[in-house]
């Protein structure tokens, strides 16, 4: 187990290191002078030189890369060019919106997806099954940002139940903050719950054909008891793997959905940073998103290593 853990963590570290290298290379080394990119076409050579000095761009690329990586761990990521505040603080502040949003969406997607998938499997080849699977097809086809716009149209503009966008901040109290996150969380969650419902259904149908299900029925359990105690539990293994992977999709999905609802989170910050050519902010934000994905995937693998010893060998 210790060997598996070390190997998996080393692989994760290596991926992160290469990710940092690629992000840095693509954004800072390849397109020529970052200072000129940031200032745009109207910049004079003097202002470009001044910005180069301010950003420390005259140091060799390798030294700059190293400084950035060390800064990433110590939280010292430099000063954002457009916001004029420390990047580390900016990311921490925006995270207070994005993380709760992603977690809410994950909880919603999991509960909806697993419940509907299990229902469809239990009623396989009936009208209920067809209805749930039809809805899942729709859920897969509708992009999260259109869900968002439709929700605003229905629940904010027409019914007035929820704000159409913006975020009051956690200091204004728990209720208004959560109220502002409900619609975005649903918009993010619905497409993912469609994926989960399909996986849950097919995994449960596979489990239902196993011998131990017949045994459970034969020893006198009712159909409902068999479904709950034996089929659903065993069927959830692939579903949970998918759920782990989905967390990183959800975090990436916030990039678009936060823009629909004008939520001051990391995703909106990234799009604004791209608009403002704020390379200092972009590179740290992108690495942050990639790190979230890579670390979640590693944690899922490790959790499975603990749960199922066979996977310790297979996954490395």
């Amino acid at each position: 187990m210790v060997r598996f853990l070390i190997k998996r963590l080393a692989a994760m570290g290596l991926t992160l290191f290469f990710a940092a290298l690629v992000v840095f290379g693509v954004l800072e080394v390849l397109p020529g002078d970052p200072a000129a990119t940031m200032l745009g076409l109207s910049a004079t050579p003097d202002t470009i030189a001044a910005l180069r000095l301010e950003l420390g761009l005259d140091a060799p690329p390798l030294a700059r890369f190293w400084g950035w990586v060390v800064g990433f761990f110590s939280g010292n990521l430099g000063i954002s060019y457009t916001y004029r505040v420390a990047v580390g603080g900016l990311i921490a502040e925006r995270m207070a919106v994005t993380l709760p949003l992603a977690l809410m969406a994950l909880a919603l997607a999991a509960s909806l997806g697993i419940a509907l998938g299990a229902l469809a499997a239990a009623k396989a080849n009936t009208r209920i099954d067809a209805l749930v699977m039809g809805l899942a097809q729709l859920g897969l086809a509708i992009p999260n940002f259109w869900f968002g716009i439709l929700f605003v149209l229905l629940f904010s503009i027409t019914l007035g139940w929820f704000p159409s966008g913006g975020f009051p901040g956690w200091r204004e109290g728990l209720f208004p903050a959560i109220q502002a996150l409900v619609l975005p969380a649903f918009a993010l969650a619905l497409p993912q719950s469609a994926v989960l419902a399909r996986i849950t259904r097919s995994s449960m149908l596979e489990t239902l054909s196993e011998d131990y299900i017949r045994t459970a029925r034969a020893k006198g359990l009712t159909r409902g008891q068999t479904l709950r105690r034996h089929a659903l539990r065993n069927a959830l293994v692939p579903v949970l793997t998918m759920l782990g992977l989905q967390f990183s999709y959800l975090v990436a999905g916030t990039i678009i959905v936060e823009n629909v609802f004008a939520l001051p989170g990391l995703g909106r910050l990234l799009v604004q940073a791209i608009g403002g050519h704020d390379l200092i902010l972009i590179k740290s934000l992108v690495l942050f998103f990639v790190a979230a994905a890579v670390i979640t995937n590693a944690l899922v693998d490790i959790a499975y290593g603990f749960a199922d010893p066979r996977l310790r060998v297979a996954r490395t």
Partner: protein
Amino acid sequence: MRRALSHPSFMIGVVLSAAILAVALISLVWTPYDPGQMRIIMRLKPPGADFWLGTDQFGRDVVSMLMVGTRNALMVGLVAVGLGLTAGLVLGMLAARFQGSFLDEALMRSLDFVFAFPAVLTAILILTFMGPGLANAMIAIGIFNIPVFARQARGAALQVMAQDYVRAARLAGCGTFSILRRHVLPNIAGLMIVQASTQFALAILAEAGLSYLGIGTQPPNPSWGRMLNDAQTFLSRAPLLAIFPGAAIALSVLAFNLLGDGLRDLLDPRLKER
């Protein structure tokens, strides 16, 4: 064929995709109006006899914009999936042929690495570097398609190469490339087509998302994603503007997903019972 005709969701997929393709082709020769022409006095008109689905905030005809948007969406799907499929097939089959070698390891590890990046993020990173635009969006979406196809091609090719007839061909003196071309490729083509259909749907979603963020298709070239972004500003005045482009995206994605699911069922009867 009889099986195909009696598979309802596959038939819906076929009919819908054909209709969408037809719209895209018609837009090449005819649209009701010039999609870029602005008429400020006619702005935000509701659907009517002159403008079937109304006009946007610049008085542009929504039907014409949707039609050209269809063409753009399909082009992105075609180029992005074509790129991913071609590169993925070649890399995947090479990795399978030299299974266990350094080449295989290096290829698969680097593709795992691309895979570790969330797709939207890869595209955003590439578009930040290359600049926004339709062509760059196609490349960006194509790049994150490569690992998907490569992994599947490698897995499927390995299965085929373990078959007796491939061993027989090798004993008979067939070279590596002739085996890959004559035996492996035809046997994994079906699987690849199914995957291509699903990836096509995902590419349409990705283009819409990138254009919604303003880094995909650039104005005045119409795009469904960008139309949705514009519509959001006028949501209370002209809610229908936010309905049509979204419906167009959902319908196309649905069409290609159904097509892919149906093809999978038809090509692999074993999966059908589920």
